Every structure is written in C-alpha cells, then in structure tokens.
C-alpha cells in the first residue's frame, strides 16, 4: 500500500507476468512511456487502448489573486497535459465505491445540510469576526464581492446588524410588557362592567311602558349627562348598533372555550348587540365567525359616539 513504484520495479513485475527477460521488459516499459510523452508533445494527443487518452489542452489567460497580499495578477495562458482514463479501467478502479449512486436531496435533508454548514461557519466566525462577514458575503454572487470595496461591505453589514438587533429588542420589550398592558385593559373592562351593572337596573323600569322609544331616551340622557365614553358605552349599546365609530383598539381578547363574538361584546361593551363592530374591526367574514379557534386573538375596538 502507498508505495511508489519506479521504472525498474515495474519492469520486474512485467517480466514476471509476461515471461520476458528483465532487460527487455525494462526497455519496453521505457519505450512505452517515452513514446507517450513524445507524441503528446508532437501530435497533441495519444490514445492507448486499455489505459486512456493523454491530451494537450490549451488553458486561457485567467485572473487570480495573491493569497498573501491580495494583489491581482494574470496567469498566462499555457498548455497542459490532461489524462482521461479508459471507461473500462475507470470502472474497475472505482469498484470499491461502485455500489453508490448519486441521490437527489429532499428539502428536509437540504435544510439539515444548511444547518450543518451554518454551524461550521459559526464555529469559524467565533475566532475571526471579519472572516465571518466575508463568508456570509460569499454566499451572494462572487462577482459582486470582488467589485465592491471591503470597507463598504463592512459598513453595510454593521448597519444591517444594528437595525435587526433593534427590531428584535423592540419585539422583546413589547412581548415582555404585554401582560401589563393587557391586564390594564382587562381591569378597565371590569370597571366598565361594574359601572354598567347597576345602571340597567335603574334604567329598565323606565322603558317598560314604551318598548321602542326607550333606547332613544337613554341616548339623550347620557349625551347630556356624561362625556366620558367608556362609561357611556355599555348603556348606549342596548338595541343600537349604528351610532358608533371605531376610534382605536381597546384591548386584545384571546379566545377561550365557549367564547363567541357576542360573549366578547357582552364582556367589553355590556351588550351582545355590538358584536358586528368587533367582526368589522378584525376583518372577519361571516364564515369565520364560528371557526375561531381557542387561542385566536381578537382585537376589541374602542367605540365612540358618532
């Protein structure tokens, strides 16, 4: 294994194989390779059956970059000797791996591969941050990379990172503070409910004689007596769904088991009849009324008199 076989060793082996004298086989092997190298130079191509094809190919000029200094220089066009092994020989050499076949990668596997690659780049980036920037850039078209100056790139990356981290922090703050905000709104709603509770008992006896004109009377009373909308809303809502406009979000309600738009309206406005405002504010269509799953967040609008 891993031995370098030279001319005389090869000649010895050939002599054993074919029964030639050592001197003759050495001469033969020498001639064999001499002719190949000679005629590649003169004819530009040699084909040896069972071994393969040696060919002279022209390499075009190309640009390259000095790894140490980063300077550009051109590699002059030159000729190169290429060797393509005979297909039979190629297959026989590759026998140990012949069982493998190229496989298509599914999307899941591709995602895993991406993760692995990212981890690798992350590992290297922890040691060199500048390297990381350049690597992440490399994923984008390489041509652009070369054109744009390094300083510009770093500036861009910094700005991007700052903006992204800012957004993240904001989102985090909102997320953390949400229970406080949401809680306040709930308390307000509770207050509404409490203030609402005694009111109907007072009002109800009055409209009993005339059922239809009752809401109008109430409306008149409250517009006169109180400007405070939140307190006014629960009572106004009775039997009247047209006379309000939406002026913002009161709170966000998370659907629980048994919750419906009407129950939410009852909870926050004191009446079931104002539910269309919630539906409108959330852009809900009639189909989705019944299908709102537990945990679905419904924005409850703040209503004001028209």
């Amino acid at each position, binding site marked *: *294994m*891993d*031995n*370098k*076989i*030279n*001319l005389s060793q*090869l000649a010895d*082996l*050939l002599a054993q*194989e*074919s029964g*030639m004298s050592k001197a*003759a086989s050495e*001469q*033969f*092997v020498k*001639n*064999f*390779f*001499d*002719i*190949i*190298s000679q*005629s590649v*130079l003169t*004819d530009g*191509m*040699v*084909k*040896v*059956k*069972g*071994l*393969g094809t*040696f060919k*002279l190919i022209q390499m075009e000029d190309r640009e390259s970059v000095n790894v140490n200094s980063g300077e550009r220089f051109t590699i002059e066009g*030159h*000729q*190169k*000797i*290429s*060797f393509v*092994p005979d297909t039979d*020989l*190629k297959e*026989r*050499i*590759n*026998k*140990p*791996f012949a069982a*493998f*076949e*190229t*496989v*298509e*990668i599914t999307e899941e596997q*591709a995602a895993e*591969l991406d993760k692995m690659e990212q981890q690798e780049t992350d590992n290297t980036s922890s040691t060199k941050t500048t390297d990381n920037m350049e690597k992440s850039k490399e994923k984008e078209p390489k041509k652009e990379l070369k054109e744009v100056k390094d300083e510009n790139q770093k500036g861009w990356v910094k700005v991007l990172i700052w903006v992204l981290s800012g957004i993240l922090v904001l989102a985090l703050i909102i997320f953390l503070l949400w229970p406080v905000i949401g809680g306040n709104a709930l308390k307000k709603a509770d207050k509404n409910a409490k203030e609402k509770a005694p009111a109907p008992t007072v009002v109800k006896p009055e409209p009993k004689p005339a059922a239809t004109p009752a809401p109008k009377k109430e409306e008149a009373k409250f517009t006169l007596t109180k400007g405070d909308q939140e307190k006014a809303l629960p009572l106004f809502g009775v039997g009247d769904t047209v006379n309000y406009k939406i002026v913002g979000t009161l709170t966000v309600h998370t659907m629980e088991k048994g919750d419906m738009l009407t129950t939410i309206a009852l909870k926050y406005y004191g009446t079931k009849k104002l539910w269309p405002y919630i539906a409108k504010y959330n852009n809900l269509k009639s189909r989705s009324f019944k299908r709102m799953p537990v945990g679905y967040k419904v924005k409850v609008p703040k209503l004001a008199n028209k």
Partner: protein
Amino acid sequence: MNNKQFLTELSGKCQMSAEQAAGQVQALIGVMENLWQNGDSVSLSGFGVLEVKKKNERVSVNPTTGVRMLVPPKLVLTYKPSSILKDKLK
C-alpha cells in the same frame, strides 16, 4: 495519435511484431492496474506519476432546475506530469 499508430511505433522501437507489442501493452496495463488497486502509485522519471486518488462525496446543484444531488465518493486514476515534461511544453 491513435492506438494503432502507437502500437506500430512501439513495436518498431522494441523490434517486435505489432501483435506482440499489443499483448505486452495489455500485460503492462494489467500489472499497473493491480498496483493501483493495491493503492500503489506508478512513478516514472521524465513522464510523471499515475496514481489513484479518492474524491470525497459532494453536493452538486443542477443549474437549470436547482435540484441538489449528493454525489458519492469515488476513486479516480489521475496523472500528474513530471516537471521535466512540463518544461518541454514551454
């Protein structure tokens, strides 16, 4: 230069018939193939090195469809010309 021309030139140089030369060439290639399959490399001064190299598996992408393929590892016979031969090219 094709195989026939090669054989006639070789037989002329070694003073043997073309058929003999063909047989010898096949024998020589057979010997070398055994060496390669054992992992040895054939190195000849003035010509170069013929050896088997292992290529690792890799992911290749079809540029038109974007389908990613996993190409398995393989053993490939490679030729590296000697510096003497390279100098003659210039």
